[in-house]
């Protein structure tokens, strides 16, 4: 699918950047003229992915997080969230609803929410090397003036 536009941001794994990341991607996605619900879904999914990097990839250190987004010709946004942290040994287990290694402060619903709010979710991870989460969401085409 032809790429129409793209962006990339990189920031340290400070929790204050969760809001920055989701707001930035939402701003970029606005070019596809999404509804408020669609924009909310994208913000939520980005927030989950970036929070995972901060909490799980770099639990005791500050590391880099890279967020890339592409707008494709079929009105789809593809978002990739990458870290170079601890990695996930068992991706299937990590994607199980309510599964968490984060204790009472985490709900274990991050991947479940990403999966239900996006059309496609792919997770690639190598323990000790890092994780990349790629997700896609097609934005409905609205008739102008309707």
């Amino acid at each position, binding site marked *: 699918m032809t790429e129409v536009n793209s962006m990339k941001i990189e920031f340290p794994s400070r929790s204050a950047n969760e809001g920055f990341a989701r707001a930035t991607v939402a701003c970029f996605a606005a070019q596809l003229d999404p509804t408020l619900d669609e924009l909310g879904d994208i913000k939520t999914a980005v927030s*989950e992915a970036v929070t995972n990097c901060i909490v799980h990839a770099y639990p005791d250190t500050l590391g880099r997080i890279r967020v890339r987004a592409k707008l494709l010709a079929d009105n789809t946004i593809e978002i990739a969230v990458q870290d170079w942290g601890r990695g996930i040994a068992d991706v299937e287990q990590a994607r199980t609803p309510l599964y968490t290694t984060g204790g009472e402060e985490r709900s274990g619903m991050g991947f479940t929410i990403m999966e239900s709010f996006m059309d496609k979710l792919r997770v690639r991870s190598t323990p000790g090397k890092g994780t990349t989460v790629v997700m896609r969401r097609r934005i409905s085409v609205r008739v102008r003036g309707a």
Partner: protein
Amino acid sequence: MRVEAAYAEGRLTLSLSGELDHHAAREIMREIEEQLELRLPGDCVLDLAGLTFMDSSGIAVLLKTYRRVCAFGGRLRAEHVRAQPLRVLRAAGIGRLIDVTAQS
């Protein structure tokens, strides 16, 4: 992110405003627990009219609040929930535990 508390006749209303994510969650949970311990309310209402964003970190805050309130025999409900937090709560099936009412 802010919490405002109001207490009257056994009912504690906690009004949350702003964006509830992992960054805000710990401080918000501390403020909620402080209020719960102070009042031990039979009836606890989370007024989410001002909550403009919430992710799964917010689910953990709600579940922890629910467990605390249940521990002293109280009831918890969430009111005036906006569209985005509502979608997150629904995806997590929170409605089975907590009475959730959408913003009209």
